C-alpha cells in the first residue's frame, strides 16, 4: 500500500481531497445549490406578479401599492451613487426588493458550513481526522476552502437563477448606472467575501461541535451584523478597487477567524 509522505502540502492536499469528495457526494450541497437557483426565480416571478397590486389597511383605509423590481439586476445589488447614498439605499431601505437579494445567501452559506462542519463531529468523522494528524491548521484551511467553493457555487447558482427568473417574468435586463465590468466586479467581490464568512461560520461551528443548533444560532447572529455591509462594499457599479478591498479584507479576516478556530480546536476535546 502506498502512502504519500507526510509533508505539509500532502497532508493539506489529502484532507482537501477528502472534503471535496464529501461535498460533491453529499445531498446537502446539491440541495443548497438548487435552493439558490430556485430562490431568485421565485422572488422575481412573484414580485413581478404582485407588482402594482394594491393592499388596503382595513382599519385606516390606507392604500399601499406593492412595488416590483425595475430590472433583474436589482436582485444582485444596487448602484452606489456615493458611499453615503449607497448606504442609505442598501442598508436603510427595508423594502422587499432591497431585502430579498443575493446577500441573503450569506445566511444560506452559514447553514451550509454549519451542517458540513457539525456533521464531522456528529458522525465521529472528526475522530478519524484528528487521530491521524495533530495539526488543526489543515482542518481549518480545508473547511474554509470547501466553504468558499460551496459558497461560490451558491452565488453563481443564484446569479443563474436570476437570469432564468428575469427571462420568465419578462423583467428588464437593462443596466442603468453600471456596465458589464461593474456587474462582474460586483459578483467577483461577493465571491471573494465568502472565505471570510466561511471562516466565521467554521469558527462558530467548532464552538458548537456536535450541537448544530448552537453553531447555527451563533453563525446566523453574527451574519446578521455583517451581511448589510456586503451590499455596501459590493455595489453593481463595482470597480477593481472594490474587488481588491474585498480580497484584502476577506483574507485578513479569514486569517484572524481561522486562527481563532484553530485555537478553539486545540484547546477543546475533539470527541
Amino acid at each position, binding site marked *: 500500500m502506498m*502512502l504519500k509522505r507526510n509533508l505539509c502540502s500532502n497532508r493539506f*492536499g*489529502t484532507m482537501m481531497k*477528502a472534503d471535496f469528495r464529501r461535498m460533491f457526494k*453529499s445531498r446537502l450541497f446539491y440541495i443548497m445549490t438548487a435552493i439558490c437557483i430556485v430562490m431568485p426565480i421565485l422572488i422575481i416571478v412573484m414580485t413581478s406578479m404582485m407588482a402594482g397590486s394594491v393592499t388596503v389597511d382595513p382599519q385606516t383605509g390606507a392604500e399601499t401599492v406593492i412595488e416590483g423590481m425595475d430590472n433583474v439586476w436589482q436582485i444582485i445589488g444596487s448602484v452606489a451613487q456615493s458611499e453615503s447614498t449607497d448606504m442609505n439605499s442598501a442598508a436603510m431601505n427595508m423594502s422587499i426588493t432591497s431585502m430579498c437579494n443575493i446577500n441573503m445567501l450569506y445566511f444560506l452559506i452559514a447553514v451550509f458550513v454549519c451542517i458540513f462542519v457539525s456533521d464531522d463531529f456528529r*458522525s465521529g468523522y472528526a475522530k478519524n481526522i*484528528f*487521530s491521524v494528524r495533530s495539526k488543526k491548521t489543515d482542518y481549518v484551511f480545508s473547511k474554509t476552502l470547501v466553504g468558499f467553493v460551496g459558497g461560490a457555487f451558491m452565488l453563481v447558482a443564484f446569479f443563474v437563477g436570476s437570469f432564468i427568473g428575469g427571462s420568465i417574468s419578462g423583467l428588464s435586463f437593462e443596466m442603468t448606472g453600471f456596465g458589464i465590468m461593474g456587474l462582474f466586479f460586483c459578483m467577483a467581490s461577493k465571491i471573494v467575501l465568502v472565505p471570510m464568512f466561511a471562516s466565521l461560520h467554521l469558527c462558530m461551528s467548532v464552538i458548537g461541535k456536535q450541537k448544530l443548533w448552537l453553531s447555527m444560532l451563533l453563525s446566523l447572529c453574527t451574519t446578521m451584523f455583517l451581511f448589510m455591509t456586503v451590499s455596501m462594499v459590493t455595489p453593481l457599479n463595482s470597480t477593481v478597487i472594490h474587488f481588491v478591498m474585498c480580497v484584502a479584507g476577506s483574507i485578513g479576516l479569514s486569517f484572524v477567524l481561522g486562527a481563532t478556530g484553530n485555537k478553539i480546536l486545540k484547546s477543546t476535546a*475533539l470527541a
Partner: protein
Amino acid sequence: MNAIEIRNLKKNFGIKRALSDLDLTVPEGSIYGLIGENGCGKTTTEKIICGLLGADGGSVKLFGKSHTDEETRAKIGALIEAPGCFPNLSVWNNMMIQADNLGIENAEEEVVKILKTVRMEGAAGNKYKNCSLGMKQRIGIAMALLGNPELLILDEPLNGLDADGMRIMREILTDLTQKGECSVLISSHILGELEKIATHYGIMRNGKIIREMTARELEENCRTYVAVRAGDMSQTKTLLELRYMHTDESEDGYLRVYDAFSPEDVVSYLYKNGITVTEIKSDKIGLEEYYIDLMSEVSK
C-alpha cells in the same frame, strides 16, 4: 522499542478524576488487551493517545516520540467508540473519504481489498445508515486498517460482531502482529475472545492500571482445577472439604477442587467413600474469572 509508553497520565473532567498516574506499556508487535469496568478510563486513555483529548499531566510516547508528533500520528489506525462514518453516504464513499484523508494513492484497490478482508464487499453500495450494528463495526475495523497502520487502537471493536466477525477479527489481528507489522491496543469486555488473541494485558480500575502482565504470566496465575458433579452433591462437598484445602462451588453447579493431583485421584477418593461421580473435568481459570477474582480482591 515500545509502541506506546504512558507515564503518570492524569486527566480530570471537572472535579471528577478520570485518570490518575496511569502507567501503561505496549511493546511493539504485541496485542495489548485493556480490561476494566465501565467508566474506569479505558476510552479516555485511548482518546488521549489518539490526540482527541488533552491530558492534564504525564507523558504519552508512541514509538519513542511524543504522541503529538505529526509523523508518528500518521502511523495510527483507530476505532474509538463508533466508526466515524456519514450516515447518508454509501459504505464505499465513506471508505474512499477515509482513504483520501490518509493519502492512499491506489485508494480504490485498497478499499476493495480491505472490504473483502472484513467480508463487506457485498455491502459497499449500501448507505451506512442502513447497515446493521455488526456491519457498522466491520466497517469501523476496515477504516482503522486502511493505510497499513503500525499501531491500531481499538475501543470495543468486538461489540455487535457475530461469530464470523469475531473470527475474522482474530485472524486479522493475529496475522498483523505475527508479521511484526503492527501493534494493537484493544479494549473489550468480551474477555473470552480477548484471551484468544492478547499477548499482554492491562487491568484498569478507577483510572489506574492495577495489573499489567503478559499472556504467559496470566497463564501462570490462572489455577487449574478439577470440577466434579455427583449424585449427592452436599455429601460430596463435605467429603471434598475434608480432604482438599481449596474447594468451592461454581456458578454452573460443579464442585471445584484446586489442589487435586489429577481427576483420577478425586474419582477414586469419592468412589471409596460411596459417591458415584456423574461428571468430571479438568480445566483452568480463564481471564474472565481471573479478572472477577482480582476485582473482588481489590474491592476488599
